[in-house]
């Protein structure tokens, strides 16, 4: 009986571990390190620069590294500001 319980626990544990690994993550490209980002940013125009940071997504509590163009960040930021202004009017 104990062996069956142990076996069930093991199967459950394996299932739990495998659930953490999705095909999307396994095929994910390696994101650039902080030094690589800095080296890249030093050679391109300001609007072409990228920023990478670790963020917690809304749907998950696991921190993930995300990279964006500075221009996209700025556009999103100004868009949200505009939306907020519109709502507050």
């Amino acid at each position, binding site marked *: 009986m104990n062996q069956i319980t142990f076996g069930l626990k093991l199967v459950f544990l394996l299932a739990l571990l495998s659930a953490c690994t999705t095909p999307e993550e396994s095929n994910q490209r390696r994101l650039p*390190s*902080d*030094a690589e980002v*800095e*080296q890249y*940013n*030093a*050679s391109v125009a*300001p609007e072409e*620069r990228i*920023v990478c*940071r670790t963020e917690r997504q809304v749907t998950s509590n696991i921190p993930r590294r995300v990279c964006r163009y*500075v221009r996209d*960040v*700025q556009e999103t*930021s*100004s868009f949200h500001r505009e939306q907020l202004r519109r709502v507050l009017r």
Partner: protein
Amino acid sequence: MFAAPIDSRYSRAYRVLGFTAVPAYQPILRKLLLVASLLPWSVSLLAEPPVELESEAWVNNFAQQRSEQLISEGSRLLQQGAYQAAVQQFSEAVQIAKINNGLQSRSQMLALALQIEAEIALDNWEAVDSQLAYFEWLNARIYGQNFDHYLDGAATQSRLLLAASADARNPVSARYLIAAKNLNWRTISSIEATLGSDSERLTPWLYNIVLVHFYQSALTRSRGLTSYNYKTDRAEIVAGWSLSRNESLRISHSIGKELLLRIQSILADDAEAAALLNLHLGDWEMLFARNSAALDYYIEAIDKLRSAGVDPNRIDAFFSQPTILPTGALITSLPEPGSVASTPLRFEAWSSNYLAAAVPSPLRQTPSISDAETGARVRFNLTPLSSNNSSRLILALNNMQFVDVNPNNERIRELIREEVGMLQFRPRFVNGTLASLDNVELEYLFSPEWNLTGLRESNNASRGEDNSSAADWENTRR
């Protein structure tokens, strides 16, 4: 107008020749007579000595000597503090170099660098910006001609950018620091493209960036400013992105560590150098108050040095030398047993912009910024704290005594206590265990602007004057 005298001359000639009437062959004869009458005058004119023009001191802009004279004179003026006059000399030297050797010649770079130095001293930031841009453009032309010259030019430009960033009156000093860092990165990219990504020539440039991150972290800690990476290496301000202080410090720490590990992998064939990179990694962790990681790296460095066959006594002797962090240059071999570090330890504070940072090695050669006079010689002990101590420091600086103070007043003593307390020292190890460093003697020199404000303030305070320190500074600097 000339008809009458010529006619009278003809008439006189006819009379001399015995004619009474004008002959039929008059036109030809007229011409002959005209030539004959003008001949003596022409001869006399040719016989006269040439008229000397008013002599003028013409400058020969093609003379190499002239350029050298101007640079020499400009350097003298720079040392004397006559910056505007120095700028004129260097500017002329640049123009002469262009005339002599071509518009894109490297020969103008020496005078140009000196001119930028003088402009920095004058706080003429607009001129500094345009000349630095020209310097970089010129150096980019040199890249295709001679790679070594290109690297020399990049090193000079990096030095100038750091000098500009250290000026406490520069309203955008951080922009120059980031510009220096970006320049170092671009140079690394060019070395990778030319010599390969595992070239040993990358190592000093990689270490330069490590140091810039230390300066950047000092700036972030003292001012709480962030996001220089994305905002301020250009003139225009780009809004929309910022980093918290902690995140900025984390990134600086992460990049510094990554670069030191990369240097270690480049120098992996040299066991001693690779071991000493562990030492640098320990230093880096110490600077970011990650003491546990620092201790691990130090102990690993000692183990690796022993494995590399280095005499343990030599290792202990090396760690017995007090060292202020970070070291100005990369250490890739242990010093020879005879070459002991100079006593006392000397620290030249660089700038009030970068607290607890020494003047960078390339800037020590610049006469205009290394003339610090105000400071003190102090003696103290560095005692290791037990590992279970909750304090973030590994070493405690205690029992500080003043050996010599210049000028000798309480204000200076107070400042010295404060600034020496901010310095980070490498811990001492004996047989692989932490040990105390007693009677460390340190000669501490204030940064140039402290020489002006600090000294004035303290003197005024002692005289009971109530002057604005900013106004004093302005008056003193000018």
